[in-house]
């Protein structure tokens, strides 16, 4: 059992000594969650071909590969894809420029790793494997800033991970579950 909760606020103390969220806080997180999601029409735009579905799939694959290579945690992987989707739904990337998508993917990975990971490699090193395009650190940095501003600096996204402890608590009759009962 690994604590992945990013938004803990106190309600009691779990076995591991970490606090659980209050109802009020959970309600507030539900309310805020929409600020950290892509626009409502994003999925339809992907399906309709308005946004490049294949390119997104490649990006997600690349994120998974880099994540696995560096041993980043699942939250880092989730955040990378979250940033990617939110950016794509909010910013019109120029068509026919595949390198832009690759640059965006690396920037999202880099930001997520900086948010969540202890050991963060140099940004140029995130471009591994069969990347068709390799960017200079300075270029990635500029993309990072564009992502940060496009996402209004809301990088600490409310994610499904944010609710895991709360649901475990609820599933266990409002008692803090014993760690050994959780896979």
């Amino acid at each position, binding site marked *: *059992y*690994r*604590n*992945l909760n*990013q*938004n*803990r*606020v*106190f*309600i*009691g*103390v779990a076995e*591991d*000594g*970490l*606090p659980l969220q*209050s109802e009020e*806080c959970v*309600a*507030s997180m539900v309310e*805020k969650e929409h600020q950290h999601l892509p626009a409502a029409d994003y999925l339809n735009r992907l399906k309709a071909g308005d946004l490049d579905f294949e390119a997104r799939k490649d990006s997600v694959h690349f994120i*998974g*590969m880099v*994540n*696995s290579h560096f*041993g*980043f*945690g*699942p*939250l880092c*992987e989730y955040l990378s894809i979250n940033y990617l989707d939110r950016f794509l739904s909010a910013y019109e990337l120029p068509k026919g420029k595949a390198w832009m998508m690759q640059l965006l993917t690396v*920037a999202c990975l*880099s*930001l997520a790793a*900086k*948010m*969540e*990971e*202890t050991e*963060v490699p*140099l*940004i140029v090193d995130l471009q591994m494997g069969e990347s068709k395009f390799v960017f200079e*650190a300075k270029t*990635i*940095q*500029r993309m*990072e*800033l*564009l992502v*940060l*501003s496009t996402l*209004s*600096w*809301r*990088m*600490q996204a409310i994610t499904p*991970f944010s609710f*895991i402890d709360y649901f475990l608590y609820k599933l266990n009759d409002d008692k803090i579950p014993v*760690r050994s009962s959780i*896979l």
Partner: protein
Amino acid sequence: MAIAGAGQLNLHESPCWGSRSVDCFEKLEQISEGTYGQVYMAREIKTGEIVALKKIRMDNERGFPITAIREIKILKKLHHENVIKLKESVTSQGAKDEQGRPGKCCPIPINNLLLGATKYSPAVDMWSVGCIFAELLHGKLIFPGKDEPEQLNKIFELCGAPDEVNWPGVSKIPWYNNFKPTRPMKRRLREALGNQEKAPATATTRRKGQTTEITAFTASCRLPPIQSGQAHAQMRPGPNPPLHGSQPPVAAGPGHHHGKPRGPAGGPGRYPANGTNGGFNHQNHGGGYSSGPYPPQGRGAPYGSSGMPGAGPRGSGGSGYGVGAPNYSQDGPTEVLVLDVALT
């Protein structure tokens, strides 16, 4: 206080977050300068509000600085009268580094960074925590040097001069030979900070041990992982105010030895890499939720992601530190980060 309401999470932010330019502010004077960049006192032109402007220096090798990312992440979570509130971040259009007059030294000296090491690590943070604890206890800056050599000297005077005996590997740090002390200096931390009469007796005893131990170990960057884990546990809001809690004081093993390695040292002068036996893995019980196509990695819990206080550093029932009035009230200055980079 056991339950922190949502109001204590700093969830509210201005709608214009990140979209404005630094030109919305007028710089009044430079307050401080550090490895991260400069801090200015500034006035928001439209409202006249006084804020602190922190200019983030961009690192061309590592992109947007991880320290700034973490700072924003943590400050956005915190909402407490004693913690500066992050108001917004603004950008400046490609301005060059401005040379301000030398400001006051950073109140959070970072020993190995001053010596030219470039690797930011948990040890650096632990050093800072130690310094902050010591300053809370002391009621003022503990290393008030006006420039880096003077500051280093103050550190050596209080913590003892580093050498290969108490800090294996120190002579390999780039600037050690430029700054190493000319005469031997003994550690006098306990004498200097151990006799605080201002605080209630019960707290003093605890604090004494805690401050001395933390600073002692981080000074030589040898705080072993398990102890640093406890340090973070101490910082979490808990039913017991952190300093009076039932948990043992940080790094307080029997004997309170100073400067001797405890536990598995991660090699001279640095932390073990966050591999399978990662540094801050006190919450790591294996497994994980990774159900995707990639096998779960046996890695430590992310440093700082879960251990940070989500609701202010301590409960209202705590006795507080009793020294030094809080610098910032709810209505006090807020901080604005300036990102010195053009967005195109």
